[in-house]
């Protein structure tokens, strides 16, 4: 008889649920996709309901419910942190303590109560794992390696901010750790905050800004803010940080160090912000390389797996993949806290049931396509009920039809199969376009995503053709590794010594034959696509290649700025009509914008969706 384990992460950010059956990941989803609240921290009852429905079971049929971290340990860290905060911690402490006393220090009771309230049977009592153990399990157990060094890096869990584990077969053993307040995640978030972006969501913007700058503050960061040891460990100089006092990341000391006040959100970006981003990025890469080296030395393994929010820094991942420190690298696609739900469930299930995916080769993530899907019949019913105009294509004709529209310059909303688990759209809920189009980046940023014009777009490429276009080491199925575009597709100016012009003034210059996906530093955040991981997407790329000779598409997440990635056909249609997309593909059904009935909403969505 099958044994099911439910993993839950909740109450901080990116709440999620994951269901594992006998060591196999069956379903996983983030609550934000259902609630439509970005980074939703609430109890993931919708995500849990989806997991149960997908498996056709009730809560009573679960063998275990595992919460992703240990609330008692976390409570101890919060108190200890305030005991080092000094008088400035008074206000945050008096706001935070009542909440901890009321429910947060015994969060498992609340989890149990929420499960009862779902009315889907009686679940087993929830048990707690630990934050970094959940990350480590999410990285190692679904990885394609029998044994590996495991490195987790994030802001903070209970106490630990960085951990090294030794993964062997079905076991996971803690080898070493660095603990709070010394945290790479906090360092990166401090600069995110200082540059006027939101903490816990704007970090990837800082990473996208870095190539426009020069790392002229890197020496200041190394000298004043971070002490990086030869053994790979590091500490932060807490004289400059305020996050442990509970109200903000940095303050006056940080402003004086860098000679300017904290940037106001949405105010104009200056070159110095790009330089700050470049500087903290370079230092982060140094720390990550040192930690990877330490992980290899302390475990004796040459294959490395990673998770934790910092593992979403695909630029650092690219540097690591090319460094020669490791022979193989695999990164959990849901590397942030959502992935902890998956890790918590796997950590309970794998010791008893093993890792069946190892027998098949490849990883155990099913291309990260672990979320809900909608049949062609369900989509057709939705379209007909609402009077939307569509054409249905047989599968063998659909890809050529869409490829033709893409080649003519159309921007296409591509909605196929099961939704992705993790922050990246990987060709199930994606907006796609022709990367050869010089105006595509600007058009997608300003008229479709409604976001900052400096933000780059990522390429999806047929895995077999990846080497012809990008300097990748190995595959990048989850868009978590940045690589330089190949010399043969660079423009003449880009091939010259010193490379192309950088800086914010050069955003829309063409640097390669694929200008829409080539960042100012000639890099690209590549997704390699195979038939095994995502057959419809691979077939679309093949059709586009047959039509144009180019096996690459621009891929961005199917949402507008500040909105979670779309979940249902209704979400997708709404996003399609709100934006400058030309074509929408829902399964086998294709819709043209110009054919649709007039679209009106009672309120402007820009007032409803807060900026990220």
């Amino acid at each position: 008889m099958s044994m099911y384990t439910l993993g839950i992460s909740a109450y901080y950010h990116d709440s999620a649920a994951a269901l594992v059956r006998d060591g196999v990941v069956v379903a996983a989803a983030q609550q934000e996709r259902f609630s439509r609240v970005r980074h939703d921290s609430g109890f993931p009852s919708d995500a849990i309901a989806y997991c149960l429905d997908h498996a056709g079971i009730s809560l009573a049929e679960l063998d275990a419910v595992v919460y992703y971290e240990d609330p008692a340990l976390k409570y101890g860290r919060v108190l200890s942190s305030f005991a080092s905060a000094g008088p400035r911690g008074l206000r945050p402490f008096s706001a935070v303590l009542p909440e901890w006393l009321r429910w947060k220090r015994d969060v498992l009771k609340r989890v149990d109560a929420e499960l009862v309230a779902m009315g889907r049977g009686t679940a087993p009592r929830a048990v707690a794992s630990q934050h970094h153990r959940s990350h480590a399990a999410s990285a190692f157990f679904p990885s394609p390696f029998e044994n590996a060094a495991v490195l987790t890096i994030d802001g903070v869990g209970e106490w630990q901010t960085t951990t090294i584990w030794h993964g062997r077969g079905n076991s996971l053993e803690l080898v070493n750790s660095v603990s709070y307040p010394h945290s790479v995640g906090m360092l990166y978030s401090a600069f995110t905050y200082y540059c006027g972006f939101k903490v816990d969501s704007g970090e990837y913007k800082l990473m996208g800004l870095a190539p426009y700058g020069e790392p002229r503050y890197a020496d200041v960061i190394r000298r004043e803010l971070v002490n990086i040891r030869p053994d790979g460990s590091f500490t932060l100089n807490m004289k400059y940080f305020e996050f442990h006092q509970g109200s903000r990341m940095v303050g006056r000391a940080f402003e004086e160090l860098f000679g300017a006040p904290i940037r106001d959100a949405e105010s104009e970006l200056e070159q110095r912000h790009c330089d700050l981003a470049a500087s903290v990025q370079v230092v982060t890469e140094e720390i990550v390389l040192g930690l990877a080296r330490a992980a290899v030395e302390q475990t004796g393994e040459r294959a490395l797996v990673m998770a934790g929010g910092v593992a979403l820094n695909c630029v650092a991942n690219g540097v690591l993949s090319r460094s020669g420190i490791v022979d193989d690298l695999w990164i959990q696609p849901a590397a942030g806290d959502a992935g902890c739900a998956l890790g918590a469930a796997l950590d309970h299930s794998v010791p008893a049931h093993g890792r069946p995916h190892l027998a098949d080769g490849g990883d155990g993530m099913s291309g990260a396509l672990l979320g809900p899907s909608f049949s062609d019949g369900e989509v057709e019913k939705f379209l007909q009920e609402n009077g939307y105009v569509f054409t249905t294509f047989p599968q063998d004709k659909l890809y050529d039809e869409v490829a033709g529209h893409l080649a003519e310059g159309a921007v296409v909303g591509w909605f196929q199969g099961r939704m992705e688990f993790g922050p990246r759209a990987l060709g199930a809920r994606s907006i796609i376009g022709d990367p050869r189009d010089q105006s595509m980046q600007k058009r997608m940023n300003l008229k479709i995503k409604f976001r900052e014009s400096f933000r780059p777009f990522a390429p999806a490429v047929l895995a077999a053709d990846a080497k012809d276009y990008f300097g990748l080491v190995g595959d990048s199925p989850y868009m978590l590794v940045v690589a330089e575009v190949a010399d043969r597709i660079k423009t003449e100016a880009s091939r010259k010594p010193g490379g192309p012009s950088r800086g914010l003034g050069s955003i829309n210059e063409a640097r390669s034959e694929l200008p829409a996906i080539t960042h100012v530093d000639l890099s690209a955040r590549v997704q390699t696509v195979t038939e095994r991981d995502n057959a419809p997407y691979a077939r679309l790329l093949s059709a586009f290649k047959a039509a144009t000779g180019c096996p690459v598409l621009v891929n961005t997440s199917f949402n507008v700025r500040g909105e979670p990635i779309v979940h249902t056909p209704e979400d997708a249609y709404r996003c399609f009509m709100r934006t400058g997309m030309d074509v929408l593909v829902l399964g086998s059904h294709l819709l043209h914008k110009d054919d649709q009935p007039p679209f009106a909403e009672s309120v402007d969505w820009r007032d409803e969706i807060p900026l990220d």
Partner: protein
Amino acid sequence: MRFAASAVFVAVFVPISLYRRLRGSSRFGPRFHQGSSAWDLPYAANPR
């Protein structure tokens, strides 16, 4: 509740914080920042 929390903070947490600062005995202080390693468990790195 907030008032009680404030009182606890002033009576307990501020003195602990000052004591830790004077002794330099905290992970948050400069002595830890200047230490030879920040690993939680001892580890001698291979020379590079």
